């Protein structure tokens, strides 16, 4: 009797998991459709900027080479509390840059004023310098293509930023699908055992 009810509950759970998987697959395809849309829009804006700035002005040649150091502005954090999920840590490319510039300007002014004061300890200034240098590495990628970039370049950046956000969502759906599949396989084995036990 209990074996029968066990078998029933396993079957029900298997059905639930199969439905969940179908939902996730649908979500995955929807997200990919919006990703395709963003990439297409972004590419179109890149093509327009290429038309405005010249063919070789928007190409691989403008990307940083291995000689220069570059820090990613879009990074991920892993959240392992319930299940493995990825979150976009920081994606404030242009905002970060303007803040960094503003703060470095303010620091510059402050330092000039402070020059007259001998009481300021040297070590403190050094400590302030190091994070600033780090910020210099994290510059807006738009600057690789020149100072006055066309509006289309900014629009392309926006589209690709959206694509990055969608990519993180896609990765999370993929992780969810993997966990559903794993659970489904183990339940299938359990079902087999129950069936062979009953016979």
């Amino acid at each position, binding site marked *: 009797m209990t074996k029968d009810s066990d078998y029933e509950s396993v079957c029900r759970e298997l059905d639930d998991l199969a439905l969940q*998987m179908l939902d*996730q*697959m649908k979500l*995955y*395809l929807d997200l*990919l*459709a919006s*990703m*395709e849309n963003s*990439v*297409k829009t*972004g*590419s179109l804006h*890149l093509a327009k900027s290429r038309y405005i700035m010249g063919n070789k002005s*928007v*190409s*691989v040649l403008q*990307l*940083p080479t*291995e*000689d*220069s*150091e*570059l*820090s*990613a*502005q*879009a*990074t*991920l*954090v*892993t959240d392992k509390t319930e299940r*493995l999920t*990825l979150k976009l*840590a*920081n*994606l404030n*490319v242009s905002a970060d840059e303007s803040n960094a510039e503003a703060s470095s300007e303010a620091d510059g002014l402050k330092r000039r004023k402070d020059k007259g004061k001998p009481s300021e300890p040297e070590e403190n200034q050094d400590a302030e310098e190091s994070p600033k240098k780090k910020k210099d590495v994290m510059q807006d*990628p*738009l600057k690789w293509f020149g100072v006055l970039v066309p509006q289309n*370049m900014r629009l*392309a*950046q926006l589209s*690709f*930023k959206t*694509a*990055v956000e969608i*990519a993180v969502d*896609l*990765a999370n759906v*993929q*992780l969810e*699908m*993997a*966990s559903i*599949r794993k659970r*489904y*396989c183990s339940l*299938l084995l359990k079902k*087999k055992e129950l069936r062979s036990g009953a016979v």
Partner: protein
Amino acid sequence: MALHSAIKGKLLAVIGDEDTCVGFLLGGVGEINKNRQPNFMVVDKNTGVGEIEETFKRFIKRDDVDIILINQNVAELIRHCIDSHTNPIPAILEIPSKDHPYDASKDSILRRAKGMFNPEEMGN
């Protein structure tokens, strides 16, 4: 180490054509680390399959990469490598490019998911 990676954050790697790489780097995913290893690879018509495969394997081995974005047409060239990668992290995302629209029937992830509904494949 855990503390260090928590502060630094993990990366998205990109393997794709010129526009895909320029675009995603414009979106802020690019990084070149202290060993001068970039997290992106531009694939053009002169790039060999072996080179793509090598870069893909290097990205998989790197513990600071959590997502690998790869153009679907490039993924087709190294399908055996993608199919053999079964770990959830790094997640491999096959993305469309401007010349090659997305084809769901080629995607390894969806094919694996569809296998769940195929009794023969699940060994039922």
